[in-house]
């Protein structure tokens, strides 16, 4: 009887070890706004085949992606918040910031546009939403990411540019809701609630068929959304796979991949979800 | 040399003293019965002998060596003793597995186990019960499984706590049969706790009387039942006639004791001096009843009136008022022949040798 027990334990240990032991992969923390569009799933097999290494992709919000990078739990981070990226590198956690794709943020909302923001600039639109929302919280609503993501950071930036203190907005009233979820779920939520929200173009197009929302504001410098790739600094975390990370950077900025990125989504959505910008900050 | 020796064993549970200064010596191959009322401490004493508990004070010696209070040696000694508990718990397994448990725990070989288990099941009369779940058995069958479980280990010492309590007569008889067999054939040393006096009398070589935690008297059946040491023991062992009296004459060891309110004299055999306050004890079965004034060789013959008759199975218990109260035990048939009923005049007779004189302590 004791023999049986021992065998079971041994088998279990072996099995559990075998499901752990596997060739080291390249770990990438990326934002949900990029992941939900399906771009990663599209590019992943190409990278894996080309370099013979498995990509492990953690789909999280920008805030926690930065945290993973600081802790050395991942080898690469791919996010879209310039300010925090630069701080990350300044603090020595990252090697360099390489933009590789961009699109624009949009303010989307219900087709009948009860707050009347269509065609306005982003800062004016937000101002109008605040006024109308305070006056009519049952019909005018805004859903925020509320999760320290790149999109959330952009939203905060727009509020500031419109001369509002973000904390005031948060407490402003029932019309402003903080979802705390990824971009996709936030869009679905906004659609259910007939609310306005700030979204990146890529995710919006990818989810369009499931939403009752339309783009209302799409012009404005502040709406530029740049995705960058940053390798985690091997000086801070020696175990990270810096050569393979650099391979990923080369891959994303290679002309071949850049072309693929620029063409991604045209077939399904009639227009590309991203625009390539190989390593340089895009012009407006 | 004694196989088991208890020296000055006392035990308490919390503030309650359960055993007081027990000294006991059990010889190899002896059958010892421990009798006493419920709550006297019989179970506790057995538990201590089985090394399930360490006594609060005192020592236990086994085979001449002192038993340590813990450790491997204690476990080894415990394995030579087997205990059948009062309401034995059988495990939720088949009868076979229940009986085989102990052997398996001792690492016995599978074939040997099968041999021994089958043999013992035959002895206790549970052949064919091997595959039945032990929890589905009747009280008598459970007791036999428990017995088998212990016997199969061929213990040097077998402890039994009320082995036939709450069993029907047929099951009781079977158990007693097994106990006798084991005592005779295997010469196992046995200590049996019981409150059934006649069982103790029948099966044991020696009897110990445990009252209120104290081992009050040890002796063979005759000593206990016919010469109880004091009133409590006498009451316990079924001496129903305990008469307060005073010795008035003593001639060559034959005394006259005046008993009862009318100071009636009864004859007894004793060495106590004249003037001594005593108890005269007579066992009910030693009293014969007859129609008025049947002469007999007995010295003590008294006329009296029947005050009460109770039927106890095949026997009748008859209370008679002869100026002092006597309880007699006769067969039911005799009772019917004599037409014993309330109010009937009878003659109660008993021999002087049947009267046991006990000192009476008047404080």
């Amino acid at each position: 009887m004791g023999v049986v027990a021992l065998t079971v334990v041994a088998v279990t240990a072996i099995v559990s070890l075998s499901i752990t032991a596997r060739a080291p992969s390249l770990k990438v923390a990326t934002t949900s706004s990029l992941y939900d569009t399906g771009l990663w799933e599209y590019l992943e097999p190409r990278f894996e085949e080309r370099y013979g290494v498995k990509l492990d992709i953690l789909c999280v919000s920008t805030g926690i992606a930065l945290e993973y990078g600081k802790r050395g739990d991942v080898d690469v981070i791919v996010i879209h918040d310039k300010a925090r990226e630069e701080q990350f590198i300044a603090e020595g956690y990252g090697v360099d910031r390489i933009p590789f794709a961009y699109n624009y943020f949009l303010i989307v909302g219900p087709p009948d546009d009860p707050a009347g923001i269509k065609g306005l600039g982003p800062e004016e639109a937000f101002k109008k939403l605040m006024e109308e929302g305070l006056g009519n919280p049952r019909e005018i609503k805004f859903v925020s990411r509320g999760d320290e993501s790149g999109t959330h950071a952009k939203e905060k930036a727009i509020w500031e540019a419109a001369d509002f203190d973000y904390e005031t907005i948060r407490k402003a009233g029932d019309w402003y809701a903080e979802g705390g979820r990824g971009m996709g779920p936030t869009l679905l939520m906004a659609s259910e609630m007939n609310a306005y929200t700030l979204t990146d173009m890529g995710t919006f197009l990818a989810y369009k068929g499931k939403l009752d929302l339309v783009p209302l504001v799409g012009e404005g410098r502040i709406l530029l959304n740049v995705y960058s790739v940053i390798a985690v600094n091997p000086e801070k975390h020696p175990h990270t796979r810096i050569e393979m990370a650099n391979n990923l950077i080369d891959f994303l900025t290679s002309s071949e991949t850049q072309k693929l990125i620029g063409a991604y989504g045209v077939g399904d959505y009639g227009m590309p979800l991203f625009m390539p910008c190989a390593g340089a900050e895009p012009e407006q | 040399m004694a196989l088991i020796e208890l020296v000055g064993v006392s035990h308490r549970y919390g503030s309650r003293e359960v055993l007081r200064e027990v000294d006991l010596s059990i010889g190899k191959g002896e059958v010892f019965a421990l009798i006493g009322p419920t709550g006297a401490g019989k179970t506790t004493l057995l538990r201590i002998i089985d090394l399930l508990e360490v006594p609060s004070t005192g020592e236990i010696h086994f085979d001449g060596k002192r038993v340590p209070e813990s450790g491997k040696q204690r476990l080894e000694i415990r394995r030579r003793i087997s205990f059948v508990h009062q309401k034995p718990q059988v495990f939720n397994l088949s009868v076979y597995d229940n009986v085989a448990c102990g052997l398996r725990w001792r690492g016995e070989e599978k074939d040997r186990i099968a041999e021994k288990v089958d043999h013992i099941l035959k002895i206790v009369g549970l052949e064919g019960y091997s595959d039945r779940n032990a929890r589905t058995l009747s009280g008598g069958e459970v007791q036999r499984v428990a017995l088998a479980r212990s016997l199969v280990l061929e213990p040097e010492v077998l402890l039994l706590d009320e082995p036939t309590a709450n069993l029907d007569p047929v099951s009781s008889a079977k158990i007693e049969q097994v106990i006798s067999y084991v005592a005779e054939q295997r010469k196992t040393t046995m200590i049996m706790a019981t409150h059934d006096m006649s069982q103790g009398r029948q099966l044991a070589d020696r009897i110990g009387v445990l009252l209120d935690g104290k081992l009050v008297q040890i002796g063979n059946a005759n000593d206990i039942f016919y010469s109880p040491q004091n009133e409590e023991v006498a009451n316990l062992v079924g001496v129903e006639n305990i008469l307060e009296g005073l010795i008035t004459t003593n001639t060559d060891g034959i005394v006259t004791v005046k008993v009862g309110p009318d100071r009636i004299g009864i004859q007894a055999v004793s060495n106590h001096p004249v003037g001594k306050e005593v108890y005269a004890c007579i066992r009910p079965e030693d009293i014969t009843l007859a129609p008025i004034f049947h002469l007999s060789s007995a010295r003590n013959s008294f006329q009296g009136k029947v005050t009460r008759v109770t039927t106890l199975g095949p026997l009748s218990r008859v209370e008679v008022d002869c100026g002092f109260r006597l309880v007699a035990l006769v067969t039911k048939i005799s009772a019917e022949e004599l037409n014993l009923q309330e109010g009937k005049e009878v003659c109660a007779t008993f021999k002087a040798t049947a009267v046991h004189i006990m000192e009476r302590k008047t404080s």
Partner: protein
Amino acid sequence: MSEIWEGLIKAVYLIVSLDPEVLEIAGRSLRISGTACLLASLVCLPLGALIHFHQFPVKRVLINVIQALFSLPSVIIGLFIFVLFSRAGPLGELGILFTPTAMIIGQMVLITPILLGLTISALSGVAKEIVDTATSLGASGFQITLLVLGEARYAVVAAVIMAFGRAISEVGCALMVGGNFKGFTRVMTTAISLETSKGELELSLALGIILLFLALIVNIALHRLQQR
């Protein structure tokens, strides 16, 4: 409402067609939760017996704490394990984060209070005389523990079933310490979470139904154990 019906249809389809990805994550769910349950049982069942049969001063308090931990949220455990095994943490060198091993550890921690608490509770149904009987028949401490657990086997297996259910249905810990990597640390619950956030409701429902189906099968198997 139609989503539920369509989810059901999709579930049947996925099962019947033996969809490879579903098979893979279902297998992983079973392996991870099964291993966690087995290893935790090997520790907690004897430990529970030990706690039950011994008296010691803080026993009552300990049992209360164990029962309070029944409500420990899986995401808290996930956070704790993450901090422990992160590269920046004390055990980071082991490189266990984002692997099935971390998930097994996390689930083991999650179900330990349940296994301990319910084992102790199961054993309280076993008469003390059983221990005495076994002792007087010469059983060692280890042998007594096995016997007693066997006597309470119905309730003990129920505890194991409950623990397994808790493990296989949790998502907070699996997400945090596993990373939900496709083909490596993705399990049924994390897959459901992902598909739901993508808006794929029918697929999520289908996966949920399959998970229940799996749990049912494991339950039936463990039930056979109870009957013996």
